[in-house]
């Protein structure tokens, strides 16, 4: 196999891949996909934004969050409130959504610096449970059950609105992926990994452990907030029912199944989040399981696959693909690394 030579500068390489992906997706959404497919691609892109942040947090920094659905809600509501009360620029609204979620991330991340994995999982789960009743408490501000209306920016000229929305979401996903990919290769990324692997050694090396953890949490929450805002765009509204605890759990599951710590894997995760419910619905239709069962089948499959994957293949889809790739290319000498990757969730490859 010929060895493909990529530019050595990470920023240029990542930008190149992102531009290429953008062009391919533009072509596909414009010429091949139906408008329904376009909105599905946009939804995948939305999830990729959230999952990229989650993968950074868990894979690189070793912190686990069961509350990212809550950060999505913070972002979605921030954008909707700005849309309803101000005439701010759309881009500013998106940035504010990410910023507000990051602020929440700092609030949750601060006590989290003292917590080890399982404690943090419990606390963030409580956060995800605590937010919706607060929104319901002030229906005048947060719109109660119906939530708040969201107006997606109008498409220019002849462009189909669904397509336009999908482009916004794809562009956001590509930008986030490039930013996170560069962050992983930067001083911050190395600090995140160092803290994950050995806090005491890291602090002896002069890195502020608590600050690093809070930074990782804030960045991850910002991604979730942006994702929540993008989510609101495609459903034209945000309400508390959009962000249940099960969303947080599904996000974590998708991240694990995609391949914790990888960014490419988050695309598989997004695809799973969007298509698994549809596949399971058609599966239960195929076996005549009835509507009562079919509503829960995707949940059951998600959970069961999560358990089996965690026991049998903790590196997820991306880990499996990498293993296959290494075998195909015949670079057996690097297999040791592949095996290391398969050791557990806490691994920090950056493919």
């Amino acid at each position, binding site marked *: 196999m010929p060895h493909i030579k990529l530019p050595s500068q990470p920023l240029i390489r990542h930008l190149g891949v992102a531009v290429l992906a953008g062009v391919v997706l533009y072509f596909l959404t414009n010429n091949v996909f139906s408008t329904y497919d376009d909105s599905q691609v946009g939804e995948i892109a939305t999830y990729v934004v959230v999952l990229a942040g989650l993968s950074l947090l868990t894979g690189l920094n070793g912190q686990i969050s069961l509350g990212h659905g809550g950060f999505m809600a913070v972002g979605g509501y921030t954008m909707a409130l700005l849309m309803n009360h101000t005439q701010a620029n759309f881009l500013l609204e998106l940035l504010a959504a990410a910023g507000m979620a990051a602020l929440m991330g700092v609030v949750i991340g601060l006590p989290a610096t003292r917590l080890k994995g399982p404690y943090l999982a419990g606390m963030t789960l409580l956060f995800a449970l*605590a937010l919706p009743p607060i929104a319901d408490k002030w229906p005048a501000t947060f719109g109660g059950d119906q939530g708040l209306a969201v107006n997606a920016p109008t498409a220019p000229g002849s462009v189909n609105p669904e397509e336009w929305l999908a482009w916004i979401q794809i562009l956001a996903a590509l930008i986030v992926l490039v930013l996170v990919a560069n962050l992983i290769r930067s001083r911050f990324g190395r600090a995140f990994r160092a803290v994950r692997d050995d806090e005491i050694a890291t602090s002896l090396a002069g890195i502020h452990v608590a600050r690093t953890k809070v930074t990782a949490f804030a960045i991850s929450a910002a991604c979730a907030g942006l994702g929540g805002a993008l989510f609101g765009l495609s459903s034209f509204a945000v309400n508390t029912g959009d962000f249940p605890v099960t969303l947080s759990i599904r996000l974590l599951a998708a991240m694990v199944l995609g391949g914790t710590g990888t960014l490419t894997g988050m695309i598989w995760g997004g695809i799973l989040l969007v298509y698994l419910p549809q596949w399971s619905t058609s599966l239960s239709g195929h076996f005549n399981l009835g509507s009562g069962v079919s509503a829960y089948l995707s949940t059951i499959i998600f959970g069961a696959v999560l358990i089996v994957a*965690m026991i049998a293949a903790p590196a997820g889809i991306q880990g499996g693909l990498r293993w296959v790739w290494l075998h195909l290319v015949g670079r057996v000498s690097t297999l040791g690394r592949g095996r290391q990757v398969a050791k557990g969730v806490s691994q920090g490859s950056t493919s």
Partner: protein
Amino acid sequence: MSLFFNYTLNGVANGMIFAALALSLVLIFRATRIINFAQGAMGMMTTFIASSLLNRGLGYWWMFVLILVMGFVFGGVVERVLIRPLQGKSELNPVIVTIGLLVVLEGIAGAIYGNASRGFPAAFSQSGLTVGKTKIAFSHFDVFILVSVLMLMVATLVLFRATSLGLRMRASAFAGEIARLLGVRVGLLLTLGWALAGVAGSLAGLLVAPTSSFGPYYMDLYLVYGFTAAVIGGLESPVGALIGGLITGMSISYVGGYLGTGFEPMGALALLIVALMSRPEGLFSRPQARRV
């Protein structure tokens, strides 16, 4: 004043249930250093089975005993099948597996029994007791909750403090390798820890069901409150679980009573944050030296 009194009583009754769940989390944490996020869902599952048994005409107390036995077996099987293969791997893996189990159990319960909440009988009357002439917010059933959870606590304490089995359990949790060398069957005792936690969890399920909207998700909030209680108590001692449960129960009852029930989860979150910021190791566990 009487309002405050009633909130306190309500907090004690709920706190005992949180304490039962906290105890189950503590038993598992002591044995395997894992927080079992599926504990509530396991209690939910056994309670649904209980509901089916009652519908078939089984008496309440036969059902009660049978369900506790079932919880025992369930806990042990989960440890053997799902948790044992993960031993020695990253601490996040078991967290994710228990979350997977939570999702699967809630999905199965939803698929079989539907999402609508249903009734579940209480062992005793749920109307308030009368003391002197006033009716207080503490029913016969609340007395039953108090007594049954206290009995469970005492039984656990006696097991750990006064029996050789408990000594072996403590040894295998404290220093597994050394205990193994001394001939203790460590693996079996870890399973026993999970099985006992299963009993506490299914008891909590039976106690919660009559007073809440019994459906696939009814234990979710109780589990996180139980988690709060366990963390406040330090995740190590049954006594800590009891006191953590009472603190959590009363705090949530006051928050819900004076500010509205919607604030209860936020109150628990605030309590958890304050507790962790001030005493990260919990109120009832000794500070431990970290090995570099």
